[in-house]
């Protein structure tokens, strides 16, 4: 189903992958397990012959979520809950829900209470990353996830299945990184929207199949440099709705680096295959860039952004703020200050799931990049 997609198909599917996932589940008889973003080791779920799907909000209207989570809850959490409660809940046989912030902690509870008949487990990744106990805990949690999945499916997972799963995931990461590299150097070849749609979709569909599409997309590419692009670094957790990438494309911005959880952070830290696989998966947690703003504070975030900005020779940083994400909001004023002091032009883009009009985003971004070109920033 996802083996021979071209870029156009990918963009269309990334916007709403659920009908195709539904069809795929029917055709293969396999079960679908949903997660929200942040560090759930999907390789483990996949090794059980289940389809891990990262839920990244819905663009359909909010109906039920507001009665569970008030309007000052982060819009991603509300949107994810809505997707499950109103639109796609029946597609999932189970959920593995990570907890990172106060909102996700409650989100997991609400979710479990609303789906009493489904398999729902919490994945409790540590909210500290620098001490030995963090590593110990990640490993414990991976092992607990394996135990829970075994108990639920009645299957054991052996090393071969896990190795095979990691191989497939590493292949996806490698292909996406290569495509990113092509796009970075040749913005006229792949648009921002196309690249980030590939990233997003790879978090949602069967990777063994999708890798074939990625490979053929890569092979079919004729690099085009393009003209008049401004290189930028994208910073944040995730960037939605996808139409924001249209705005970037329209403004001829070339995203040359990012720190998104469903962007570069997803590509980092491919687990090694030659040792203990659980250890390798735990290592991955620490080999990736930290999950801003959960794992560390602004200094690291700033250092990473600065490094990326310099390495890529970008012209500006675009920070994607998810409306009502408290964790981001505690960091943002200081991060802005540090970036400003460093002389790096920064544009903060406020996003909200379920947004229908993006005209204000376009106007503000336009003004920012025009003044950037005029050198007045």
């Amino acid at each position, binding site marked *: 189903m996802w083996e021979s997609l071209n870029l156009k198909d990918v963009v269309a599917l990334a916007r709403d992958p659920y009908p195709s996932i539904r069809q795929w589940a029917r055709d293969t008889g396999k079960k679908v397990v949903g997660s929200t973003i942040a560090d759930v080791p999907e390789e483990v779920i996949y090794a059980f012959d289940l389809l891990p799907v990262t839920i990244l909000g819905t663009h359909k209207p909010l109906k039920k979520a507001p009665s569970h989570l008030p309007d*000052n809850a982060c819009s991603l959490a509300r949107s994810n809950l809505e997707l499950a409660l109103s639109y796609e809940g029946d597609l999932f046989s189970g959920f593995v829900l990570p*907890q990172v912030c106060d909102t996700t902690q409650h989100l997991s509870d609400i979710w479990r209470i609303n789906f009493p008949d489904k398999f729902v487990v919490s994945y409790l990744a540590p*909210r500290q990353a620098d001490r030995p106990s963090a590593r110990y805990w990640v490993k414990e949690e991976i092992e607990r996830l394996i135990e829970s999945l075994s108990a639920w499916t009645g299957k054991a997972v052996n090393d071969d299945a896990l190795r095979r799963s990691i191989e497939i995931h590493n292949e996806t990461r490698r292909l996406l990184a290569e495509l990113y590299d092509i796009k970075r150097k040749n913005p006229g070849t792949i648009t921002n929207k196309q690249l980030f749609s590939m990233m997003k979709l790879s978090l949602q569909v069967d990777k063994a199949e999708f890798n074939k599409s990625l490979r053929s997309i890569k092979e079919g590419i004729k690099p085009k440099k393009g003209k008049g692009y401004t290189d930028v670094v994208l910073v944040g957790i995730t960037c939605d709705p996808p139409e924001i990438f249209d705005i970037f494309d329209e403004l001829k911005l070339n995203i040359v680096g990012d720190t998104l959880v469903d962007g570069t952070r997803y590509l980092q830290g491919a687990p090694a295959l030659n040792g203990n696989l659980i250890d390798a998966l735990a290592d991955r947690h620490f080999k990736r860039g930290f999950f801003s703003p959960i794992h560390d504070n602004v*200094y690291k975030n700033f250092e990473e952004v600065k490094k990326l900005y310099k390495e890529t020779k970008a012209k500006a940083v675009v920070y994607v703020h998810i409306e*009502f994400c408290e964790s981001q909001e505690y960091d943002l004023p200081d991060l802005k200050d540090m970036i400003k002091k460093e002389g790096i032009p920064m544009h903060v883009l406020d996003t909200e799931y379920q947004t229908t009009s993006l005209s204000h985003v376009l106007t503000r971004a336009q003004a920012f990049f025009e003044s950037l070109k005029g050198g007045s920033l």
Partner: protein
Amino acid sequence: MSDKLTSKQLSKKITDEYMEDAFHAHDNNKLVGYTTAISPVEIFVAHDIVPIYPENHAVANLTAKKGVELCSVVEGMGYTSHLCAYARSDLGYRKTGVTVTRGIPDPDLFLACNAQCFTLTKWFQVLARRGDLPVFVFDTPEHILDQKARKEIVKYCVLQLKELISFLEKVTKRKFDYDRLKEVMKYSAASSILYKKFLDMAQYKPSPISIFDALIGMAIAVYRRGTQECVDYYQTLCDEIQAKVDQGIGVLPKDQEKYRLYWENLPVWFKFSDHAKLLGSYGGVILTSLYVHAWSFDFDLNKDPLETLAENYVNRFSNSTIEDRADMAMELFKKYSMNGMIMFMNRSCKAVSFAVPTLKDVLTKRTGIPALVFESDMGDQRFYAESQVRTRIEAYFETLDRLGLAQKTAAA
């Protein structure tokens, strides 16, 4: 005349001495550690680090209606208006120095325990950046329902407490004294039992205390647990309340106590006494909440101190699942014979409030009692609509009356 101090006098004395100690910590070779109200402060106490709770200081300012002034300043600095009002008012205090107390001493280090909320970790990080100070995050994964996972969580937390001790040893260049910790634990265990006894006096009819007494009475448990004086304070308090019980003295006279109410969430600090009066005029008295019970620990002195600390801090209501919160609340409903509930959706505190809609559904179903839900903010008056709250309260009591839920003992 006895020269024994009353609980009120004792509380003042303990607080004054504590603040004196805090302000002169450096003169006495001690460090000041900022920590979260729910955190294993016993480790600080055992290591002679003076614990300071910016939340308490924030409460003083918010109760004195300084919220808008302080929060507005912070919004001008780029922080949004829907962050916790404790954090906002504290950052405002840092900027302006405005406070209704003598302020709080600056920190040397931080201990952020997630069992309360993740907000505090982020807030402490903001403060730490100002002085490039060390922050220790005590990460308490949610106390999920799976019993086996709970054991693992405790193990992870014990490991972290050991890391905390090494961290403190490094910062202070002093060896940690485990025997001293055992002693501190004895005081904490003893004061917790007495604190709980005090809260549980709300079982009596009429109740000798309301939640407003509990909120005042909890202060010492929050900032002085782990000391002998904390034990003495709760002994005095319990004796005083027992004397009221013996004389049949209630917050409301027995024949006027119609509604014994549960409160969900933190209080609206700047409406504290108004709410008590208003509810009293309808024969309502709020008896308790999960919030005030957050400091009634159940330390097991036969266990390794780090283990019993870990167990107790991970299982606080604020780190528990909604199912467990509902069970905890149900226990209170039964124990205190409550017949009404006020569920406050506090814009400031996402950590507590995002459970409220679900909790309300579960509790109303399980008790058969309707709930009054209202949204506002615990410290920022801009989010408080006086007339709306009054009307809702009035309507709520009318509903309870109509349903015949008033206590049988009440006057006709």
